[in-house]
């Protein structure tokens, strides 16, 4: 039993707005007209595509394989045909398109053969690989691969924490999942505990979700497993932040740059545990998730949607009101405004929030900072945001780092309370971005210098080669011309005719020699087969050159 809860400093209490959608049971969203499944999963992970346009795929079939340590596999969310593999809009603040697989469903929803995975009979590493190949990632938003987090780490995991806090306003998908599928969540958690070799499971749920707490407690009782405890934590944003929840439940503070495993704890979203359960018990890879459609909508609710469903096709389910002026992916505190409604649902999409000028009024004009310190009072990372603001604004990035800029979790509490309406988090994102860019630039400069030196050496070598070849060819041409001239110089049979012939022959010979010089390729005197082969090779070369063109342009 947990003796007492700990407190994290700071935090705010925005209106929760959860009642708008909390009462709506999870409904399965209809099959969309097409699905867009991005291959890129994070800045450092991009899955390797396994399918080609035109290929038919089954529901749950792996269409891209995990490549690299932080990558997971990608699966077809339904059966159908691969339409294209091309850049598509994705939910990223940059708005840049990313390579994705587009699938046209055939409407039959035919599954691959599904088999439960006997995790108790194999080593944990094999189960982790299985989860990776099932595409299981954290469903709380960040989408970090679950198999990596379940790894042994330095000290092993003693406590597994399930995050059901769901502290962002409006969002209710985890609430509904816990109310409706508590058994599966806890079964998944038990499996994860087995893989990680942990002792106990703590489920943290904000106390504004009494039904979810009750349902999870009942499920824990039913499961009859020891050391599973469902804990109600005080409702205060961002109680669902990983570090904040770990602090509240265990008292452990995980500093920036350290992972839970360093301290023997690891934290998973309840949705992730549910996904683990489905993968292990039913052999179903992660191809759908529950998300909330709320905000400025007439029928807000919770829906189980296929990964890859275009947002545009989901919206009619909740009927956005006419004055909706934007859509957010995520909650109002940390969500990202969608630049395109063709953006698909991804594994981290927990909410689509319709905004309106009345719901999220444009912020009043920014005033100067009066150092009132309200931001420092609410900062859960216990930073001094106004100091970071001065440094970020003045581009004194070294000082900003000294004042722990990178400990900022961008929860938005500081901007939320600032009486001067300064978009503090924006300043911090800017400063972080600049620092990253500078570090990248430095690294890139080092690489570029190396590459430049190599290129110089290569060009030098090629020049020498070319000159040698050219010299050889020219020499050969001269010799031939000389031979022809010698022929001409021979005494003629009929002097006039022969002289004419000889002149023509010499001219031809010269032309030939010249041609050879200009086009020094070994393509004369070939059989038709050889010529055909050469033509084919030339064609391929041209194609490659064409393909390489944009790349070359970028390089220049």
């Amino acid at each position: 039993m947990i003796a007492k809860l700990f407190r994290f400093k700071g935090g705010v209490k925005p209106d929760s707005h959860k009642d708008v959608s909390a009462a709506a049971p999870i409904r399965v969203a209809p099959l969309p007209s097409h699905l867009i499944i991005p291959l890129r999963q994070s800045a450092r992970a991009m899955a390797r595509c396994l399918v080609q346009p035109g290929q038919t795929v089954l529901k749950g079939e792996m269409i891209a394989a995990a490549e690299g340590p932080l990558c997971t596999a990608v699966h077809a969310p339904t059966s159908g045909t691969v339409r294209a593999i091309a850049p598509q809009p994705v939910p990223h603040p940059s708005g840049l398109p990313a390579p994705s697989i587009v699938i046209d469903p055939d409407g039959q929803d035919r599954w691959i053969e599904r088999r439960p995975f006997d995790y108790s009979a194999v080593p944990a590493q094999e189960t982790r690989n299985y989860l990776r190949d099932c595409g299981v990632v954290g469903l709380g938003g960040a989408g970090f691969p679950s198999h990596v987090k379940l790894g042994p780490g330095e000290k092993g995991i003693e406590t597994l924490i399930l995050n059901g806090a769901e502290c962002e306003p409006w969002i209710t998908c985890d609430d509904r999942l816990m109310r409706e599928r508590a058994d599966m969540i806890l079964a998944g958690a038990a499996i994860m505990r087995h893989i990680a070799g942990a002792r106990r499971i703590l489920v943290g749920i904000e106390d504004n979700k009494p039904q979810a707490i009750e349902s999870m407690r009942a499920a824990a009782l039913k499961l009859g497993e020891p050391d599973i405890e469902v804990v109600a934590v005080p409702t205060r944003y961002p109680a669902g932040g990983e570090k904040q929840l770990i602090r509240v439940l265990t008292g452990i503070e995980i500093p920036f740059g350290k992972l839970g495993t360093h301290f023997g704890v690891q934290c998973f979203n309840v949705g992730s545990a549910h996904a683990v359960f489905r993968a292990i018990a039913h052999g179903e890879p992660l191809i759908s998730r529950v998300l909330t459609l709320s905000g400025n909508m007439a029928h807000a609710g919770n829906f189980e949607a296929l990964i890859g469903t275009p947002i545009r096709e989901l919206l009619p389910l909740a009927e956005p009101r006419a004055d909706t002026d934007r859509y957010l992916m995520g909650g109002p505190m940390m969500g990202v405004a969608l630049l395109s409604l063709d953006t698909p649902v991804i594994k981290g999409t927990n909410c689509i929030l319709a905004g309106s000028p009345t719901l999220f009024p444009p912020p009043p004009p920014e005033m100067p900072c009066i150092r009132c310190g309200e931001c420092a009072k609410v900062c859960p990372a216990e930073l001094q945001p106004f100091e970071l603001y001065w440094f970020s604004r003045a581009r004194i990035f070294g000082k900003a780092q000294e004042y722990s800029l990178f400990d900022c979790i961008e929860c938005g509490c500081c901007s939320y309370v600032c009486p001067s309406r300064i978009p503090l988090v924006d300043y911090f994102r800017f400063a972080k971005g600049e620092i990253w860019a500078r570090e990248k630039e430095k690294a890139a400069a080092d690489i570029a210098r190396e590459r430049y030196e190599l290129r110089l050496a290569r060009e030098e070598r090629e020049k020498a080669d070319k000159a040698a070849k050219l010299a050889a060819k020219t020499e050969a041409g001269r010799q031939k011309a000389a031979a022809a001239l010698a022929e001409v110089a021979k005494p003629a049979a009929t002097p006039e005719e022969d002289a004419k012939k000889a002149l023509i022959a010499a001219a031809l010979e010269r032309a030939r020699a010249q041609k050879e010089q200009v086009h020094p390729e070994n393509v004369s005197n070939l059989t038709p087969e050889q010529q055909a082969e050469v033509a084919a090779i030339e064609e391929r070369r041209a194609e490659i050159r064409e393909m390489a063109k944009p790349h070359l342009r970028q390089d220049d």
Partner: protein
Amino acid sequence: MNNSPYSLKPASVQSVMLRVLLALLPGIAAYVWFFGAAILVQIALTSIAALAAEAAMLALRGKPMRQFLTDGSALVTAWLIALTFPSIAPWWLTVLGTLLAIIVAKHLYGGLGQNPFNPAMVAFALMIVAYPQLMSQWPAVGATDFAAQLNAIFGARQLDAMTMATPLDALRTVLRDPEQRAAIAGLLGSNATFGNIGGKGWEWVAAGYLAGGLWLIQQRIITWHMPAAFLAALFAVAGIFSLIDATQFAPPLFHLLTGGAMLGAFFIVTDPVSGATTPKGKLIFAAGIALLTWIIRTFGAYPDGIAFAVLLMNIAAPLIDMYTQPPVFGHKRKEEEPR
């Protein structure tokens, strides 16, 4: 396109400043009750001067007029100047002080949020150095004849009838004269000047400021750190010295309830722009002001030392902040390491 967070708490600089003004009202009411309506005239004068100077400077600096003129910060400065200057000071003295505060101390340093010194205290310090005589003529308790007060502010000054030494001045006079020192206890206990604790009338004004200040803490406009550290440090240092020699040093409660101590504790020391900001820094900053105040009051040439004490500590505020940065989440004591 703005970024997250999209929902914001309804808060504004204007509402902060307005609540500070509201919190001054109980003190002002007591002021009017005991010392007449002259203070209201002064508040009107400084307010008009402050807004005019603010508008002129905003226009010169090309800043959005509406946004900044309505933020209330100039009014807070104006009211504090009115409350720290003698209420029967000539009109040009308070107006000049206000103009200097807004134009020099505030806008020449970059306007709202940029001033390293507390503008109201700059005004007070400059004026008391330039016009020590005029800055020391305080109204007598009960001399509330409004016509006479108006005359003092705007017209010919015949002050003898209506002014009176403030408790701090009276105390100073007594303390300077070795023959009278023995009488200090009696003086403090019963004299008409000294009322019950901190000076007749003044202690009630101080009580009004205390009430307003506590409300500001409840409103989360200020934190408890600065008032508590200031009052505790002033009490401590005065207490220690009055224990050592009660004939030479005034008792601690007198210090707390007289002069600008209570107004300073809740409304002047707590100015966020020019003060320290970290929790520990706030304690050091406010305690430093208290200590300097007591030293200037006791040994200095001026009757009340809060203005100079505040300005001196303003200089030290950035340094204090630098050395008192609180630990960040996860980077604390070793005992927080896993068990």
